[in-house]
């Protein structure tokens, strides 16, 4: 049932991402907790949605450029993590999140490849619309646009649960086989998150980005560490 729900949400997110609305609902920061909530662990979805948003902050459709499919990647990673945690009987932990991410992140690259296929498919729809117009079927010609929503839905609804299933199968087994890896993997999760922040600052391409990024990072870290060592947790 969980995989069905994941497939449905991933399919809808793929539609929202490009074909309809584009109101940030398919961005990792929203989609992560949404999938987590649908599968019973919104906090686990947020744990992964936050670094994934920053990692893919620069993933935008500019003209004919096709970026990585951040919605499909998020669906696969968050779905895999929540379902693996559910199978282990606990919440999503940073170490589990990292392992699942390492396995399921390439789904975003598969999504990019699939998007190119969708564009080729849509060319056929354009030809079909022209044929309908030539036959004076005006409504049919206009309606061809909506058929373009089907393929992205189907691809994401299929690929996301598949990638999540592979990750949810492997990650718990790695953790069970080498429990001593849990603490280092946790640090690995934080380094991935830190690089995601760097990727976000870099993707923004502002002239003052390096100054703003390093200044704010130093300030926030200093404030946090001061609070931590004086016994006042943030």
């Amino acid at each position, binding site marked *: 049932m969980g995989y069905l729900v994941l497939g449905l949400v991933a399919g809808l997110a793929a539609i929202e991402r490009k074909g309809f609305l584009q109101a940030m609902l398919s961005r990792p920061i929203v989609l992560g907790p949404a999938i987590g909530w649908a599968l019973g662990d919104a906090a686990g979805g947020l744990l992964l949605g936050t670094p994934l948003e920053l990692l893919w902050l620069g993933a935008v459709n500019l003209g004919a450029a096709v970026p990585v499919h951040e919605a499909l990647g998020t669906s696969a990673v968050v779905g895999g993590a929540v379902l693996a945690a559910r199978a282990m009987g606990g919440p999503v932990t940073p170490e589990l999140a990292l392992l699942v991410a390492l396995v399921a992140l390439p789904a975003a690259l598969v999504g990019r490849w699939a998007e190119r296929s969708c564009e080729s498919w849509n060319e056929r729809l354009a030809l079909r619309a022209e044929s309908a117009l030539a036959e004076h079927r005006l409504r049919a010609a206009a309606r061809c*646009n909506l058929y373009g929503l089907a393929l992205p839905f189907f691809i994401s609804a299929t690929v996301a649960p598949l990638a999540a299933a592979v990750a949810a199968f492997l990650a718990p087994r790695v953790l069970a086989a080498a429990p001593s890896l849990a603490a280092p993997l946790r640090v690995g999760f934080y380094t991935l998150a830190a690089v995601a922040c760097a990727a976000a600052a870099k993707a923004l391409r502002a002239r003052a980005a390096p100054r703003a990024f390093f200044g*704010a990072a130093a300030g926030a870290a200093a404030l946090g560490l001061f609070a931590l060592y004086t016994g006042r947790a943030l």
Partner: protein
Amino acid sequence: MTLRGGGEHGPPTGQAPSPSAPAGPAELGAPARLSRATLARVFWRSLFLQAAWNRRGMQNLGFAYAIDPALRALYGDPVLREEALRRHLGFFNCHPYMAAAILGGAIHHEERVAAGLEPSQASLRYKQTLQGPLAAIGDGFFWTALRPFFGALGALGALIFGLPAVWVVLVVYNVIHFALRIGLFRVGYERGDALVPLIARLSLPVVADRLRTGGAALAGGAAGLWVYHAAARWPEPGAPITALAAVAGYLALARGARLFPTAYVAALAGAAAALVLGHFQGSS
């Protein structure tokens, strides 16, 4: 005068409009005005602009689909309606939010074309002239500044306040998004060519530049908080390794490193470093 949407099937090609079709405003000498319901329908359909994005005509199918209810209301004669739909099936590509302005402006011109006040190519010229510049403004403002800024704000908010921050960010972004999208559609429809100075007055490139700098600062704040989180869970190796990853990651990406390999190397190197340092701490 206000027109309503036409029926599914008009009279056969080449015949005169049926008596029930809306009176051609050409005879009245003034452009017809579409009903609010038809405009709302066009706007709703504009949200599907990229449903069938393709490399041949890009957003052509989406534009034709969106403007179709307006054409049905404006052209009682199916021959003219077909001709109008055909011209909107031509190549079109713009930023999906900014395209709302062009859609409104194209309807503005189609009203005049239907009234015989402008040549049939007027709306096409309008689209061709504006799609490039508005795409550049839209991409530069919405896709590379406003949305990333709110994405970074949501991420930082999530680290500090949790899930409620994400919903607040989502609502605020969409208030701005829909206000601009609806506003641009209305301005395009009501003012047609006068849309350009109005958009220029918004100074979107200047605002975008500030949003990008702000977004970078928010991402920096998030990096600092991850260092704090790492320190809270495993102070000795966790905090310095995380801080080092942020610095090294930025420098590597600035030198042209690819995102995916960088992320994998950072995660694995971080875990390996923690494993080694943890081993030494354990043995000392």
